[in-house]
């Protein structure tokens, strides 16, 4: 099997397996109502994880995304109030996207111009945004326009329209990443920024764009979070680490340059599914956290299995007497 196919295939298998198990235990799992709520519940994490994947592709992290989502929800509670209707909501929605855009540019400025490591830079942004959210709403208040939230949640049968949208987005993004010149350039910048700059590629602009995309996706995720909580709450977003987990489970490399948007989408869906099914079994959520951690480790081990197997084989050969000819040690040579 091609290595890049492993993450999406593994995620699909896990999603189906967990679904089948849950259905066997509780027949309501596959009901339209539950599937619909599962997919809607997954939307914020899917969107923010797709953004996170783009930051990971250029070799960075963005830990400020969850705080940004919260800030966006709080902003929406001012700019998208229940008294508005129709096109009056558009400027309010643009304001929320604007918050994301501004945060992305700010992050990119810290990383590209001030040369801060992305994890430290976005940690600073995270604190600032948390403070901003609390400043705007010190406690949950300000209902969010229900026309907007209803529109966001509109579905065909049990499938939310927005879910169809993100699937299409992820598939197109992957095609772009692996089948086009600019996608190749992005991966090159993520793999080796110095060589890319030497080859005349706009590395600074690429990294800036990746972080802006990440923040804008987080802002859009904020809409879906708003649709879920429906009120300006300053203490809700906690998807920062989960979004990194989803991107990595989806096949992204922490070193940059590798990843899959569709794999990320599936992984985000799977992580949400775990959260979703646990109440069915009346298990406390601690198990969910432990399960997520164990699964991430397991998946990473699996993704690296080809390397590990090669290494194990080498180790075994070293103990045995060697045949003089067939001597294959994998790819350990440097010359």
């Amino acid at each position, binding site marked *: 099997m091609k290595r890049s196919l492993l993450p999406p295939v593994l995620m699909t298998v896990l999603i189906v397996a967990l679904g089948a198990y849950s259905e066997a235990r509780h027949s309501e799992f596959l009901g339209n109502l539950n599937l619909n709520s599962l997919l809607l519940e997954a939307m914020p994490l899917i969107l923010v994880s797709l953004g996170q994947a783009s930051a990971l592709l250029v070799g960075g992290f963005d830990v400020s995304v969850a705080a940004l989502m919260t800030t966006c929800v709080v902003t929406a509670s001012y700019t998208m109030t229940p008294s508005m209707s129709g096109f009056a909501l558009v400027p309010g929605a643009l304001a929320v996207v604007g918050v994301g855009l501004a945060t992305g540019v700010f992050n990119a400025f810290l990383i590209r111009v001030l040369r801060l490591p992305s994890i430290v830079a976005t940690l600073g942004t995270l604190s600032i945004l948390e403070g901003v959210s609390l400043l705007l709403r010190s406690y949950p208040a300000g209902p969010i326009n229900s026309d907007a939230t209803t529109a966001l949640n509109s579905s065909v049968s049990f499938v939310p329209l927005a879910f169809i949208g993100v699937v299409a987005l992820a598939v197109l993004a992957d095609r772009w990443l692996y089948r086009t010149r600019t996608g190749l350039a992005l991966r090159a910048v993520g793999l080796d920024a110095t060589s890319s700059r030497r080859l*005349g590629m706009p590395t600074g602009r690429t990294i800036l764009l990746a972080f802006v995309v990440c923040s804008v996706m987080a802002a859009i995720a904020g809409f879906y979070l708003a649709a879920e909580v429906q009120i300006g709450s300053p203490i809700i977003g906690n998807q920062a680490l989960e979004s990194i987990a989803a991107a990595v489970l989806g096949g992204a490399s922490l070193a940059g*340059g590798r990843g899959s948007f569709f794999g990320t989408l599936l992984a985000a869906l799977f992580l949400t599914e775990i959260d979703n099914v646990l109440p069915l079994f009346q298990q406390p959520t601690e198990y969910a956290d432990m399960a997520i951690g164990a699964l991430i480790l397991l998946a990473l081990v699996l993704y690296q299995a080809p390397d590990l197997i090669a290494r194990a084989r080498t180790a075994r050969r070293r103990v045995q007497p060697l045949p003089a000819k067939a001597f294959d040690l994998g790819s350990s040579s440097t010359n």
Partner: protein
Amino acid sequence: MSIPGPVSPAVLSLRGVSKAFGAVQALRDVTVDCRAGEIHALVGENGSGKSTLLGIASGFVSPDEGIVEIGGARLPRDSPALARRLGLGIAYQDYSHVLGLSVAENLYLALPAEDRPSYRRMHAWAADTLQGFDLDIAVTAPTDSLSLAERQLLEVVKALLTHPKVLLLDEPTTALGPDAVDHLHALVLEQARAGAGIVYVTHRLPEVLGVADRVTVLRDGVGQGTFEIASVSEESLVALMIGRPLEVAFPERRAPHADADVLLSVSGLHGERFGPIDLAVRKGEILGIAGAEGNGQVQFLRALAGVEHAAGSATCDGAALDTSSPLGPLRAGVVLLSGDRRSEALFPVLSVRANATVQVLRRLARVGVVGRRRERTAMEELVRRLRVRMASAEQPIQSLSGGNQQKVSLMRPFLRGDVKVILAEEPTQGVDVGARFDIYEALRAKADEGVATVVKSSDPIELAGLCDRVIVMSRGRIVEEIPHGELGERRIVEAIVGSRARPATGEGAPA
């Protein structure tokens, strides 16, 4: 004594360029121009500012002062993308490959965006391109699976793909065997004939004297003048580079002791790309390993150091050598000087001091605490002896020039004191003439103390001048042994060519 040449326009012109890195003045008011159709050699010792000059010309480094003009147009700011658009192509000494991508993808990225074929046609186009350059490299291969020689040729091909008006080559032959060098020179001459200007930076004077039209010498960041090639000789250039005539290029050899004890003995050693090999190296002997690149020399050397896996047996000073990990050889006093300084031999961000003493901290420590003064003292004498050029022992080693870095890694066997065998892989790769001599002298001094030394080098002159005996490897086996009395550049090259002429079985060296 610059002679006005025929009236061809300058395709690259650097005027009054200066650059300082911290307290080090890398370049001071340097003016160079390269005309269309000429091959312009740029020579100078390590740390003389050649790489900085190329960095400025290519837009990768911004000068403190001075003007860069490419094809008559001024480069307004430091931007490799802009320099490329103005018509500059460069082959970097440490390459510009994205190692996680395939050969085809790397070639594709090297093209100017408007010249790129559709993404679908990338592989076919890349295969055609490589064939056009007579290179036998699989386009789907990951770049990190290529040999150093293949990477180096690929780097030059990438620079040529932009059809540059001016082509900068930074040490383009360090990993190449003799006929790959000829191949490269043919490509370069073709470019010059087509009207491109070539700036050729190298340490190998004979090579560059053979192809260049003019030569500019740099010393300590200051231009020493530009000369027609007919008006200079190797000796006069070396004298300008180091500021004194270099009479002896190699340290004196003592008469070889045929009856000295065998220190390192190898029997039936074989690994992925070499063997089986039988070999004995005596006390005080420097043994050279010659051969075209990619014939298992490096793997053999690394296997002896326990870095590469191998089977068979080796003994050091009579005791069996455990080569299953680097620990065994290190404990037995077998030290590898890796040719890959950046990623294997050194800790680039650590200080010169830390790099020099990292293997002997126990000896410098009392009750577990390293005495800074003891450490300094141990080092300072070696800094003088090996003539390491640095501002301070605390500066990160990556800020030293290549030759000085190599000298620091050579300090380790000196500091250890109990070293029995030194395995040196390309000990003077990317090192200038003056520093080369210091390194040869250091290796010879260790040999005279009774150390057995094995030197793998792609430079036949170096092998002939430094070694007591040279073995020639081809396709992983020893095909010829050249005794002391017969050593000479010609003899070694002939042996390499001879062994390569035999029928091929495995994968050969690149064209």
